[in-house]
Protein backbone atom coordinates (compact mmCIF):
# COMPACT_ATOMS: atom_id res chain seq x y z
CA UNK A 1 0.00 0.00 0.00
CA UNK A 2 2.82 2.32 0.92
CA UNK A 3 4.62 1.48 -2.31
CA UNK A 4 1.43 2.15 -4.28
CA UNK A 5 0.99 5.53 -2.62
CA UNK A 6 4.57 6.39 -3.47
CA UNK A 7 3.89 5.59 -7.14
CA UNK A 8 0.75 7.71 -7.12
CA UNK A 9 2.65 10.59 -5.54
CA UNK A 10 5.49 10.22 -8.01
CA UNK A 11 3.02 10.15 -10.88
CA UNK A 12 1.31 13.25 -9.53
CA UNK A 13 4.65 15.03 -9.39
CA UNK A 14 5.54 14.00 -12.95
CA UNK A 15 2.17 15.00 -14.40
CA UNK A 16 2.17 18.13 -12.31
CA UNK A 17 5.49 19.08 -13.86
CA UNK A 18 4.12 18.26 -17.32
CA UNK A 19 1.15 20.53 -16.69
CA UNK A 20 3.48 23.37 -15.78
CA UNK A 21 5.48 22.70 -18.94
CA UNK A 22 2.33 22.67 -21.09
CA UNK A 23 1.50 26.17 -19.85
CA UNK A 24 4.55 27.22 -21.90
CA UNK A 25 7.34 29.69 -21.70
CA UNK A 26 7.01 33.45 -21.79
CA UNK A 27 8.91 35.40 -24.46
CA UNK A 28 9.47 39.14 -24.34
CA UNK A 29 9.48 41.41 -27.38
CA UNK A 30 10.55 45.03 -26.91
CA UNK A 31 9.14 47.77 -29.11
CA UNK A 32 11.91 50.30 -29.34
CA UNK A 33 13.30 52.80 -31.86
CA UNK A 34 10.42 52.08 -34.29
CA UNK A 35 11.30 48.36 -34.32
CA UNK A 36 10.11 45.08 -32.81
CA UNK A 37 13.09 43.50 -31.01
CA UNK A 38 13.55 40.68 -31.88
CA UNK A 39 11.78 41.09 -35.23
CA UNK A 40 11.50 37.31 -35.65
CA UNK A 41 10.63 35.06 -32.75
CA UNK A 42 10.28 31.27 -32.65
CA UNK A 43 8.00 29.86 -29.97
CA UNK A 44 6.27 26.60 -29.13
CA UNK A 45 2.48 26.27 -29.24
CA UNK A 46 1.18 27.28 -25.83
CA UNK A 47 3.94 29.83 -25.21
CA UNK A 48 3.09 33.36 -24.18
CA UNK A 49 4.51 36.42 -25.93
CA UNK A 50 4.60 39.76 -24.15
CA UNK A 51 5.22 42.90 -26.23
CA UNK A 52 6.25 45.95 -24.23
CA UNK A 53 6.36 49.44 -25.70
CA UNK A 54 9.68 51.01 -24.65
CA UNK A 55 9.42 53.61 -27.41
CA UNK A 56 8.49 57.24 -27.04
CA UNK A 57 5.46 57.03 -29.36
CA UNK A 58 2.43 54.71 -29.18
CA UNK A 59 2.45 51.47 -31.18
CA UNK A 60 0.20 48.48 -31.84
CA UNK A 61 0.73 44.77 -32.44
CA UNK A 62 -1.61 43.96 -35.30
CA UNK A 63 -1.96 40.72 -37.26
CA UNK A 64 -5.15 41.21 -39.24
CA UNK A 65 -5.25 37.68 -40.64
CA UNK A 66 -4.76 36.03 -37.24
CA UNK A 67 -7.20 38.55 -35.72
CA UNK A 68 -4.62 39.78 -33.21
CA UNK A 69 -4.99 43.43 -32.21
CA UNK A 70 -3.40 44.97 -29.16
CA UNK A 71 -5.02 48.38 -29.50
CA UNK A 72 -2.82 51.45 -29.03
CA UNK A 73 -0.06 50.77 -26.51
CA UNK A 74 1.26 53.94 -24.92
CA UNK A 75 4.86 54.04 -23.63
CA UNK A 76 5.41 51.45 -20.90
CA UNK A 77 2.32 49.36 -21.66
CA UNK A 78 2.38 45.66 -22.58
CA UNK A 79 0.28 43.27 -24.65
CA UNK A 80 0.12 39.56 -23.91
CA UNK A 81 -0.74 36.87 -26.43
CA UNK A 82 -0.75 33.07 -26.14
CA UNK A 83 0.35 31.38 -29.37
CA UNK A 84 -1.91 28.36 -29.87
CA UNK A 85 -1.91 27.61 -33.60
CA UNK A 86 1.32 26.52 -35.24
CA UNK A 87 2.48 28.39 -38.31
CA UNK A 88 3.82 31.84 -39.17
CA UNK A 89 2.14 34.97 -37.97
CA UNK A 90 3.42 38.20 -39.48
CA UNK A 91 2.35 41.38 -37.80
CA UNK A 92 2.77 45.13 -38.09
CA UNK A 93 2.26 48.29 -36.06
CA UNK A 94 -1.02 49.66 -37.39
CA UNK A 95 0.13 53.23 -36.66
CA UNK A 96 3.50 52.74 -38.41
CA UNK A 97 3.02 50.10 -41.10
CA UNK A 98 6.76 50.20 -41.87
CA UNK A 99 7.28 48.24 -38.66
CA UNK A 100 7.16 44.47 -39.22
CA UNK A 101 7.50 41.46 -36.97
CA UNK A 102 7.10 37.71 -37.28
CA UNK A 103 6.18 34.98 -34.81
CA UNK A 104 6.85 31.38 -35.85
CA UNK A 105 4.84 28.91 -33.78
CA UNK A 106 6.40 25.44 -33.88
Amino acid at each position, binding site marked *: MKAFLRIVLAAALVFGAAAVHAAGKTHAVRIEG*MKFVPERLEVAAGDTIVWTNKDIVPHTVTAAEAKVESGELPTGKSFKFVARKSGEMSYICRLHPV*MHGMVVVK
Partner: protein
Amino acid sequence: MRALQLATSLAAASVFAIAAAQDKGPSDPQIAGIVVAANKIDVDAGKIAKSHSKNKEVQQFAQQMITDHTAVNKQAGALAKKLNVKPAESDTSKSLKSAAKDTQAKLKKLKGAEFDKAYVDNEVAYHEQVLGAIDKVLIPNAKNAELKGLIEKVRPAFEAHLEHAKHLQASLK
Protein backbone atom coordinates in the same frame (compact mmCIF):
# COMPACT_ATOMS: atom_id res chain seq x y z
CA MET B 1 4.08 75.57 -55.15
CA ARG B 2 7.79 75.11 -55.44
CA ALA B 3 8.08 78.65 -54.15
CA LEU B 4 6.29 77.66 -50.94
CA GLN B 5 8.44 74.56 -50.54
CA LEU B 6 11.58 76.59 -51.16
CA ALA B 7 10.49 79.33 -48.81
CA THR B 8 9.69 76.77 -46.12
CA SER B 9 13.01 74.99 -46.56
CA LEU B 10 14.92 78.25 -46.51
CA ALA B 11 13.07 79.45 -43.44
CA ALA B 12 13.75 76.21 -41.61
CA ALA B 13 17.36 76.14 -42.77
CA SER B 14 17.93 79.67 -41.54
CA VAL B 15 16.20 78.91 -38.24
CA PHE B 16 18.59 76.10 -37.45
CA ALA B 17 21.53 78.04 -38.84
CA ILE B 18 20.84 80.59 -36.10
CA ALA B 19 21.13 77.86 -33.50
CA ALA B 20 24.32 76.49 -35.07
CA ALA B 21 25.86 79.94 -35.42
CA GLN B 22 25.42 80.85 -31.77
CA ASP B 23 28.83 80.85 -30.11
CA LYS B 24 27.37 79.15 -27.15
CA GLY B 25 24.92 76.36 -27.95
CA PRO B 26 21.41 76.43 -26.49
CA SER B 27 21.01 75.69 -22.79
CA ASP B 28 18.98 72.72 -21.55
CA PRO B 29 15.86 74.86 -20.88
CA GLN B 30 16.22 76.32 -24.39
CA ILE B 31 16.64 72.83 -25.88
CA ALA B 32 13.47 71.75 -24.07
CA GLY B 33 11.75 74.84 -25.51
CA ILE B 34 12.90 73.96 -29.05
CA VAL B 35 11.72 70.33 -28.67
CA VAL B 36 8.29 71.40 -27.44
CA ALA B 37 7.90 74.07 -30.16
CA ALA B 38 9.05 71.73 -32.94
CA ASN B 39 6.56 69.04 -31.92
CA LYS B 40 3.67 71.43 -31.46
CA ILE B 41 4.25 72.91 -34.92
CA ASP B 42 3.87 69.50 -36.53
CA VAL B 43 0.76 68.67 -34.48
CA ASP B 44 -0.80 71.96 -35.66
CA ALA B 45 0.15 71.25 -39.29
CA GLY B 46 -1.41 67.78 -38.92
CA LYS B 47 -4.65 69.29 -37.64
CA ILE B 48 -4.82 71.62 -40.65
CA ALA B 49 -4.24 68.63 -42.95
CA LYS B 50 -7.00 66.65 -41.24
CA SER B 51 -9.49 69.42 -41.98
CA HIS B 52 -8.20 70.41 -45.45
CA SER B 53 -7.25 67.13 -47.12
CA LYS B 54 -9.60 64.61 -48.70
CA ASN B 55 -6.83 62.14 -49.51
CA LYS B 56 -7.04 59.08 -47.25
CA GLU B 57 -3.28 58.50 -47.12
CA VAL B 58 -2.57 62.15 -46.34
CA GLN B 59 -5.22 62.03 -43.62
CA GLN B 60 -3.64 58.91 -42.11
CA PHE B 61 -0.19 60.46 -42.21
CA ALA B 62 -1.53 63.63 -40.58
CA GLN B 63 -3.17 61.58 -37.81
CA GLN B 64 0.12 59.74 -37.23
CA MET B 65 1.93 63.08 -36.90
CA ILE B 66 -0.67 64.29 -34.38
CA THR B 67 -0.46 61.07 -32.33
CA ASP B 68 3.33 60.76 -32.33
CA HIS B 69 4.30 64.39 -31.80
CA THR B 70 1.69 64.74 -29.06
CA ALA B 71 3.17 61.65 -27.34
CA VAL B 72 6.70 63.06 -27.61
CA ASN B 73 5.63 66.36 -26.11
CA LYS B 74 3.84 64.61 -23.27
CA GLN B 75 7.06 62.79 -22.40
CA ALA B 76 9.16 65.91 -22.88
CA GLY B 77 6.82 67.79 -20.54
CA ALA B 78 7.00 65.03 -17.92
CA LEU B 79 10.80 64.93 -18.10
CA ALA B 80 11.12 68.72 -17.88
CA LYS B 81 8.93 68.65 -14.77
CA LYS B 82 10.95 65.82 -13.23
CA LEU B 83 14.26 67.60 -13.93
CA ASN B 84 12.80 70.92 -12.87
CA VAL B 85 13.72 72.41 -16.24
CA LYS B 86 11.39 75.13 -17.46
CA PRO B 87 11.29 75.14 -21.28
CA ALA B 88 12.65 78.55 -22.31
CA GLU B 89 12.30 80.60 -25.47
CA SER B 90 15.36 81.15 -27.64
CA ASP B 91 15.97 82.77 -31.02
CA THR B 92 15.63 79.29 -32.50
CA SER B 93 12.24 78.51 -30.93
CA LYS B 94 10.94 81.97 -31.83
CA SER B 95 12.06 81.66 -35.46
CA LEU B 96 10.58 78.17 -35.67
CA LYS B 97 7.23 79.49 -34.51
CA SER B 98 7.19 82.48 -36.86
CA ALA B 99 8.23 80.34 -39.87
CA ALA B 100 5.48 77.85 -38.99
CA LYS B 101 2.93 80.66 -38.77
CA ASP B 102 3.76 81.72 -42.35
CA THR B 103 3.66 78.14 -43.63
CA GLN B 104 0.33 77.45 -41.95
CA ALA B 105 -1.21 80.65 -43.34
CA LYS B 106 -0.12 79.60 -46.84
CA LEU B 107 -1.38 76.04 -46.38
CA LYS B 108 -4.80 77.20 -45.19
CA LYS B 109 -5.38 78.99 -48.52
CA LEU B 110 -4.93 75.79 -50.54
CA LYS B 111 -7.37 73.02 -51.42
CA GLY B 112 -7.44 69.48 -52.77
CA ALA B 113 -4.41 68.09 -54.58
CA GLU B 114 -2.64 71.43 -54.30
CA PHE B 115 -2.98 71.35 -50.53
CA ASP B 116 -1.86 67.71 -50.28
CA LYS B 117 1.29 68.38 -52.26
CA ALA B 118 2.19 71.52 -50.32
CA TYR B 119 1.56 69.85 -46.95
CA VAL B 120 3.55 66.72 -47.76
CA ASP B 121 6.42 68.71 -49.36
CA ASN B 122 6.55 70.80 -46.20
CA GLU B 123 6.54 67.68 -43.99
CA VAL B 124 9.52 66.25 -45.92
CA ALA B 125 11.47 69.50 -45.63
CA TYR B 126 10.49 70.02 -42.00
CA HIS B 127 11.50 66.55 -40.83
CA GLU B 128 14.80 66.82 -42.71
CA GLN B 129 15.53 70.11 -40.96
CA VAL B 130 14.50 68.82 -37.55
CA LEU B 131 16.66 65.70 -37.95
CA GLY B 132 19.58 67.94 -38.91
CA ALA B 133 18.98 70.07 -35.82
CA ILE B 134 18.76 66.97 -33.60
CA ASP B 135 22.16 65.77 -34.83
CA LYS B 136 23.99 69.09 -35.06
CA VAL B 137 22.46 71.23 -32.34
CA LEU B 138 20.25 69.45 -29.83
CA ILE B 139 22.13 66.23 -29.03
CA PRO B 140 25.64 67.80 -28.97
CA ASN B 141 24.51 70.62 -26.66
CA ALA B 142 22.20 68.80 -24.24
CA LYS B 143 23.96 68.66 -20.89
CA ASN B 144 21.53 66.57 -18.88
CA ALA B 145 21.87 62.87 -19.76
CA GLU B 146 18.12 62.21 -19.52
CA LEU B 147 17.30 65.14 -21.80
CA LYS B 148 19.92 63.94 -24.29
CA GLY B 149 18.49 60.40 -23.98
CA LEU B 150 14.97 61.63 -24.74
CA ILE B 151 16.14 63.38 -27.92
CA GLU B 152 18.09 60.29 -28.99
CA LYS B 153 15.00 58.18 -28.39
CA VAL B 154 12.85 60.50 -30.51
CA ARG B 155 15.19 60.33 -33.50
CA PRO B 156 14.05 56.96 -34.99
CA ALA B 157 10.41 58.12 -34.94
CA PHE B 158 11.31 61.30 -36.87
CA GLU B 159 13.33 59.24 -39.34
CA ALA B 160 10.34 56.95 -39.91
CA HIS B 161 8.13 60.02 -40.42
CA LEU B 162 10.55 61.37 -43.02
CA GLU B 163 10.53 58.04 -44.89
CA HIS B 164 6.74 57.94 -44.76
CA ALA B 165 6.48 61.56 -45.98
CA LYS B 166 8.89 60.88 -48.86
CA HIS B 167 6.87 57.82 -49.84
CA LEU B 168 3.69 59.94 -49.86
CA GLN B 169 5.46 62.69 -51.81
CA ALA B 170 6.40 60.19 -54.54
CA SER B 171 2.85 58.80 -54.70
CA LEU B 172 1.33 62.29 -55.10
CA LYS B 173 3.43 63.12 -58.17
